[in-house]
């Protein structure tokens, strides 16, 4: 491994998990891409992720200059505005060896960056580098670290909604299943029409509110059909949409990110 670029002693001390190498102890920089939604609205999701990964000696570092991946502007056609936001992500993770995020959709957005910055040589270079080192949480845990059993116990009836961008575009399909299948006491019930979009779609939910409303209502119907007590997923935007509809209807089903469920399952187990 080459020595990482521009890394000072401070960064070394603050954020890095050391591991032994032939040539002594080398440093790797594994960064948290928190996503604006998880940062502002759902801090427990990123916290669960950070604490869970730390159990494997992976110490996430958090570059504070990151904001939003720019997807709301990108998908609405405002690419200039998207670029302004996306640059904070490209700058934040320029020196990272790995970037881990609790959202398949925001992770996939990074794969649009080469297109978004095709006329900007400086940021195009950063964009191309970033896409190959970015991972959604379960991708990183299962595919990179090789962990499927985190030792969680969670005696509940759970159903899983595969978010579209994570599963279809990023290809994260088996990873959450492998993790859920190893949780002790957990009964996983299949969600009917699981692959159908929940109707979020960013500004779509505002612009086409009634179509989006019909979609999320049907998604909630399917969740309720399973009689699960907990709905899990890998994207807080979709989960916020479904949970919002369930609450609107007065339903009590809990809605969680898989990182939250796993970390709760681990903590309860250890403290009981």
């Amino acid at each position, binding site marked *: 491994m080459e020595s990482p670029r521009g890394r000072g002693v401070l960064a070394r001390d603050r954020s890095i998990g050391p591991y032994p190498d032939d040539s002594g102890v080398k440093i790797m920089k594994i960064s948290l891409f928190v996503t604006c939604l998880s940062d502002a609205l759902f801090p427990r999701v990123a916290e669960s992720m950070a604490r869970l990964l730390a159990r*494997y000696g992976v110490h996430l570092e958090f570059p504070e200059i990151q904001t939003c991946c720019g997807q709301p502007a990108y998908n609405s056609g*405002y690419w200039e505005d998207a670029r302004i936001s996306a640059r904070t992500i490209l700058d934040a993770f320029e020196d990272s060896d790995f970037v881990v995020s609790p959202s398949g959709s925001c992770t996939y957005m990074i794969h649009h960056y080469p297109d978004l910055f095709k006329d900007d040589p400086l940021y195009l270079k950063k964009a191309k580098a970033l896409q190959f080192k970015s991972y959604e949480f379960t991708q990183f845990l299962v595919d*990179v670290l090789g962990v499927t059993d985190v030792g969680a116990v969670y005696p509940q009836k759970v159903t899983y909604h595969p978010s579209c961008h994570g599963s279809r*575009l990023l290809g994260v399909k088996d990873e959450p299943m492998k993790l859920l299948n190893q949780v002790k006491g957990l009964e996983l019930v299949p969600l009917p029409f699981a692959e159908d979009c929940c109707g979020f779609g960013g500004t779509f939910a505002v612009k086409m509110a009634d179509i989006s409303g019909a979609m999320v209502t049907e998604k909630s119907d399917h969740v309720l059909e399973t009689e699960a007590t907990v709905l899990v997923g890998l994207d807080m935007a979709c989960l916020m949409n479904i949970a919002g509809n369930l609450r609107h209807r007065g339903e009590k089903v809990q809605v969680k990110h898989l990182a939250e469920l796993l970390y709760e399952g681990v903590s309860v187990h250890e403290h009981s």
Partner: protein
Amino acid sequence: MNTAESKAHSVKERAGYALNNEFLRNAVKFTTERLRLGKKLASEEHGNWDEWRERGRQIRLHTIAHLDYYLNEFAEQARANGAHVHFAETAEEAVALSLQIAEHKSAKSVVKSKSMVSEELHLNKALDSIGVEAVETDLGEYIIQLADETPSHIIIPAIHKNRYQIAELLSEEAGETLPPDTAIMAGFVRMKLREKFLEADIGMTGCNFAIAETGSMVLFENEGNARMVTTVPKTQITLMGMERIIPSWADLEVMATLLPRSATGQKLTVYMSGISGPKRELDADGPDEMHIIIIDNGRSLQLGDPEFQELLNCIRCGACLNACPVYRHIGGHAYGGTYSGPIGAVLTPALNKNVAEWDDIANASSLCGACYEACPVKIPLHDMLVSLRRRKIEAGRGDKLEAMGMKGFSAIMGNAKRYRSVVSLGKWGQKFVVRNGEIRTRIGPLKGWNSYRVTPSLPKQSFRDRWPEMERDIRRTSGQMEPEIANRLKERLQQQKSRKGEDSHG
């Protein structure tokens, strides 16, 4: 589709009618589910589906990249077979050519098999205007014609009607009450159409694939009506979009595998006809005269456009409609054009030079990518929808309020400190609307959202507020990295480095 609905001029308005029509939504859900499941089983049974999708894509990419060559080859071969080949740049030209042929033949009636391109031309109305009766002979198209509507699905034109509504329409035509029994209704239509086939002067078809090497046309159908249309009348007119070409019969094997499985879940279509020219001396039947009208109508606008050329790869199977969660709720008429669903949302604006009139249909998508996943030739429709939205903004046709919102977005998100202070400001501001940790108010942008949902409130501390303390705590309690995990990380890092130069998308 009632009058108010057909006059509605925005996707939102038209979708509103559909969302309030329980019959329509149930009928569309019922059939798209059946087709979707059929496709799923047929593609799984095939065993190498993704490999064949890629084959299909490559054939289409190659053909479209060399479309001038293959169109010439096709036209030469078809002429050598004795067919008259015409090129029409616009819908108007194609209509004029069709009417000329009908007038020249002193035709009184035309029987038609299913053709989406004839829907693009609104040909039935044009024929009617010169006193020629046009009769649709595909069952679904026949129903739609009786109802004086347009198809709401590429392959199932009457998908939005249930059998009770169909029985009503057919009873009116029969002059007696027909029960909503599929066999009885189909029996009535068969009898009725048999007369029409025998008296028709012209048979008119679309074209699923045109084979360049032999100048042949291939039709896929399940009812046998296209075979009647192409063998009984003395004159045949085939309408084809200029992109329907494939180079050879060997390529058809791939297409004949992909199309029926994607469309209906059938391994093979019930009737597949290959037609190479008019009746020859030893043939028992077939038309004496054959015309092929090759139609551009906006297609060539896509050639050389890197974002939209792949649109011409479409084989009109309708799989993207069946997979689309938006189509599922609003049906086809809400899209406003000849083509509906995800392909229609892109194709209609593209064929119409992206004029402002069609700006809004690109918004009727959550960009979930189900269309791309379903597409047998892997057209990235979800990316094309974003391209359409971007072109609208670049052309200065964006909504002013939205543009201001996006300027605000980038002003906040362009700088982490500003972003952080806005989140803090939000925590202060939200206390006017938060009740029990939830926001239910329906004002401003929250109006539509909160009509179906409640919004969570911002927590006391954001993640970045908590991180310094959290990080110290994590460091105190975290574990050691096992050598196995360390090795996996190292290996992955090497892989990442070797991929750096790649130009991957996904």
